[in-house]
């Protein structure tokens, strides 16, 4: 069974204090790993898709990296508007290499950035 574990559960930073969020995963065959941002009471907002170990993607102050067992979301010089819950999810390859799109999510990391 596919599993995703995120750590820490909550992270409090000062504005400008860089840090990383961790996503550990177990999947039979990885089709893709996804990062989403979710504001309270709203739907997840897509950030990145990573496909293979060694891949990196960047967007503004965020950088996502992927290894065979985990992914990191690095936040450089965060601002208060980066405060949100960050969700990690995996999509597995099915039998015969098919993949219909089921995402398995972690429980999320709640990030709070203080001014």
């Amino acid at each position, binding site marked *: 069974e596919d599993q995703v574990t995120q750590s820490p559960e909550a992270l409090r930073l000062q504005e400008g204090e860089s840090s990383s969020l961790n996503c550990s995963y177990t999947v039979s065959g990885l089709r893709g790993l996804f990062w*989403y941002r979710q504001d309270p009471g709203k*739907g*997840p907002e897509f950030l990145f*898709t990573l496909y293979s170990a060694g891949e990196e993607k960047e967007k503004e102050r965020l950088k996502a990296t992927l290894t065979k067992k985990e992914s990191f979301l690095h936040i450089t010089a965060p601002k208060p508007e980066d405060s949100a819950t960050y969700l990690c999810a995996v999509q597995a390859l099915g039998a015969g290499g098919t993949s219909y*799109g*089921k*995402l398995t999510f972690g429980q999320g990391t709640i990030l709070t950035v203080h001014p």
Partner: protein
Amino acid sequence: DAGVTQSPTHLIKTRGQQVTLRCSPKSGHDTVSWYQQALGQGPQFIFQYYEEEERQRGNFPDRFSGHQFPNYSSELNVNALLLGDSALYLCASIRTGTLGQYFGPGTRLTVT
């Protein structure tokens, strides 16, 4: 280009009642997935619809059913509501052949 839309935004129901939630996918997207997100948890996959048929299902009871229409919009139906069904219900749309899944704003269901 309109994103994924869901209706209603909020809903309050009583135990034992039935509810229908609606989703319209992004333009050009033909696949819809439904997720349930309890407070403080990550979304849990309910099922996925493609070509008007249920293609994949998560660990949810038969009380949860769905439908997809020819215009790709979708409905989620939940019968015999339980207090534990209170959650944010999310719809995600996908274009066949791509990986990106885009979520709607969700419907907040409260069962009393």
